[in-house]
């Protein structure tokens, strides 16, 4: 099942599966740790994503074939787990309102559901961090209930405010800082995920779990939320 391919002059890509699977992110994270520990002087960087791990290495320590063979040997002996493993659970408060959820009103009409139902569907699910990318601290969370899935906007917005919570197909995410983007915006969190707090860099790791919970307009405003 595992496959190693060439990614660049000093990098390889390891596939752990060919479709998105909830057991993969934690297993990939565990494997990445094992690899880093065993080859700390060779491995430069590790970039996990849904089903894969990009590994860059120091050319002066190993060639492509040598390194690939070493990685293959670790893969062969590695114990991957199917069960739910221990991982961090991060709670994120969200004000799901029409002022903060720029696409919320349209989505309710399209899906023909009430605001309460929508909030229930988005916040009752425990999501898994499948990947981090697009920008730092931007965690791709899956999977969104099919009843509230929505494709990306045809024309991305120039500016989405920091803390905005979005949906794109089966994924949901929080924009950590002001940015452009094409996700459907359904609310906003007060949680500061920006790199103004440098420790946020490690806020999410692939394999972590995330649970959203609804706060009222008053709570949102009381703690400094802007509309």
């Amino acid at each position, binding site marked *: 099942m595992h496959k190693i391919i060439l990614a660049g002059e*000093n990098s390889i890509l390891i596939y752990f599966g060919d479709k998105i699977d909830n057991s993969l992110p934690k297993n990939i994270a565990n494997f990445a740790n094992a690899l880093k520990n065993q080859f700390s002087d060779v491995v430069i960087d590790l970039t996990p994503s849904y089903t894969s791990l990009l590994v860059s290495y120091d*050319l002066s320590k190993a060639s492509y074939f040598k390194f690939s063979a070493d990685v293959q040997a670790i893969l062969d002996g590695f114990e991957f787990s199917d069960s739910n493993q221990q991982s961090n659970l991060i709670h994120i408060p969200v004000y799901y309102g029409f002022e903060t959820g720029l696409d919320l009103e349209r989505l309710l009409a399209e899906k023909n559901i009430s605001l309460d139902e929508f909030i229930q569907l988005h916040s009752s699910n425990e999501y898994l961090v499948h990947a981090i990318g697009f920008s*730092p601290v931007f965690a791709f969370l899956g999977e969104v209930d099919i009843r509230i899935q929505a494709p990306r906007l045809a024309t991305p917005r120039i500016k989405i405010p920091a803390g905005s919570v979005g949906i794109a197909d089966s994924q949901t995410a929080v924009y950590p800082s002001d940015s452009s983007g094409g996700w459907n915006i359904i609310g906003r969190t007060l949680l500061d995920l920006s790199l103004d707090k440098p420790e946020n860099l490690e806020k999410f790791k692939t394999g972590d779990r995330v649970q959203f919970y609804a706060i009222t307009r008053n709570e949102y405003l009381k703690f400094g939320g802007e509309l």
Partner: protein
Amino acid sequence: MSFKVIKPGFLSTIQDYGRLCHGAYGMSQSGVMDEHAFSWANYLLENNFNNAVLEITFGGVELKALDDMLICVCGADLGFKINGQLAPIWRNIQIKKSDVLSWNLPIHGIRTYLAVKGGFETPVLYGSRSINLRENIGTKLAKNDVLSCQPSSGQLARFMVPQYLPNYDHDIVLRLLPSYQYDTFSDSQKILFFSQSYRVSQANDRTGCRLDGAPIAIKKDKMISEGMSYGSVEIATNGLPIILLKDAPTIGGYLKIGTVFSLDLAKLAQKQPNAKVKFELMNIHQAQKERLKFNQFFEIEPNS
């Protein structure tokens, strides 16, 4: 204290070798666009390979020296002058307090590097001094900024041997490693890709370089997002290549036909829109051999 910015230019940023171990956090590699010119600038000053430099794009820059310093300018010819007099590039130079350094407009190439003995001492952000505007890490140069570095003097002349000087006006061939989804492209798609001359488009910055040309017909354009290495070449929905560069996102979901050899990306970094670009295949052994030779010459230790 060391330089005061009189004119910041179009796009001038402090860069070093980059932020090499932050992929898991979704943070780009960043760092200099032309590793060749950058490495020579530090080498001629007998600096560490990773010392921070000023990457000047297109020019329009004027700096005033606040100390005596040893400097070296390598890369594009942007009409570099000291106190209004044309000054040499690709060699170390002693400058004096109050000297004014200026870069006008591109003559050959578009990116040049100002290195100082000991490197610029701007803040280290997440393990590197490199500025990444897309990620809001640091800012580009602004009027009245002060760039700090140590005063320096007393080095013997060191310069690039003329026969090794790069010619930035030549058409370039980018050597491509058959990586990622290379095998999923058909022979006819590969023939179209390797036989044509593409042109650098207007959409060409530190994040990526989009090429114009005859589009490759693709059936499936998106896949599960995966880690993208420096130089990987996406074939976008419109069938045209995008070469991912230093400030590119860490993961993405377009099919990738291969990865351009890093030292050829240094040549691409000097190209303006409309420049001609071709691809040819390279094997991994040749790429590793050439890159290792480069790293050893410049004492580059990426894992240090």
